């Protein structure tokens, strides 16, 4: 996939990809940090296994949504070196577009369902 393709082609995002991007929105994280943050975002509903997480990251790196930002130890865990990931500008655009798309869908849903109850 080229890095210049329009944002529309990548939407909608799958739930794991969307939540991984959200996990990286504020800061760089390593794999386990992403897994914990995604579980927190979704109240434990979405638990990413190692295969799912790194499979997604592989595809997201290929699509230019995230990039590796080197290896270093996590001061909060121990002195083992962990591979960190950060979001690219394209990733930021995509996650914003996806959030807007979802917000639009929620607005429509609220309006329809409210009408149904009345």
């Amino acid at each position, binding site marked *: 996939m080229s890095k210049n393709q329009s944002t529309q082609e990548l939407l909608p995002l799958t739930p794991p990809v969307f939540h991984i991007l959200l996990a990286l929105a504020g800061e760089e994280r390593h794999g386990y940090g992403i897994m914990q943050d995604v579980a927190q975002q979704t109240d434990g509903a979405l638990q990413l296994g190692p295969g799912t*997480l790194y499979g997604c990251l592989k595809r997201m790196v290929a699509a230019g949504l995230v990039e590796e930002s080197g290896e270093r130890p996590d001061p909060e865990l121990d002195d083992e070196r962990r591979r960190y990931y950060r979001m690219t500008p394209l990733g930021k655009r995509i996650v914003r577009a996806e959030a807007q798309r979802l917000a639009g869908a929620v607005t429509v849903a609220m309006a329809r369902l409210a009408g149904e109850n009345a």
Partner: protein
Amino acid sequence: MTSESALIGSVCRLYSFLLYAYPPDFRRQYGRPMEQLFRDRCRDLARSSDRGRLLRFAAHVMADWLGTTVRERASAIWSAGRSSGKRSSVTEWAVTLLIYLFATTTLVQAYVVPTGSMEGNLLVGDHMLVDRMAYADPGPIGRHILPYRDVERGDIIAFLYPEDIRQTYVKRVIGLPGDRIRLENGQLIRNGCRLAEHYTQHLANHSYVATENFPIAPDGYTTPRGRDMFEHHVRDGELIVPPGMLFALGDNRDNSADSRAWGFVPRSYVVGKPLLVYWSYDAPTEELQQWSLDHIIDVSQHFFTRTRWKRTLLVPRSQRAEPAGGAL
């Protein structure tokens, strides 16, 4: 702490072995961080020391592994097909299959419920996975991290049928070694205590074995092992479970050939613990025991209508009998 880290080390080595099922490129690139993530998670769970969470994590990692190895293999073949340098994908698939075989034969086993003896909790046609590690003693070290415990009263177990070990049966454990067992008008009396069993069903309108009262004199349905049980292990109208044996009954009490008819289950015949129902299909007993062409056609025609979707991923649970009334 040292024994715990040695333990986590051995589980992590098992996981790094499972990583060989991924395509080599993927493993080279992500194998190390995946191991790291797995190790981090294990350490966190070891700190919480909650066996349930550990078991869920193990099941989750297995499911994740099964799904993503296939996905990454397929994607590797797809990209190899497009690029020129196509490597021997046959050997790679063979490696994956071998590892699958190892995992499925030592860790879990697929099993289908062929008869209605556990009806109410397990239906005819429930296809389930049996956790073979549950009751297998993992040794002094493994015992701390693997969710191991010995068989308890009320557990549902899968075991080799003592009269014909080619068959696997599923029943509920009623008596452990040393227990005194009696049935009076269908009610269980264990070690002198009347028990209410909420898991039992009385669905049949006829009695298959002389089921209401036990132990009584052997009847026509009793096998040689059953007769041996009646002759040697009944004292003062009660059955006494000998060492190394279990007394197991079906939940569907009136229509179950169980320990009442064919005697005790040797502890060493226990295969494991039913883990979850992965597919439940409404079909008669004979068709489930042997796959015939008719059955394949039947499944392909009625897969969606006769699959009991509500039972998919159902977890059969252990249930304890509770005291009812006073002691005798």
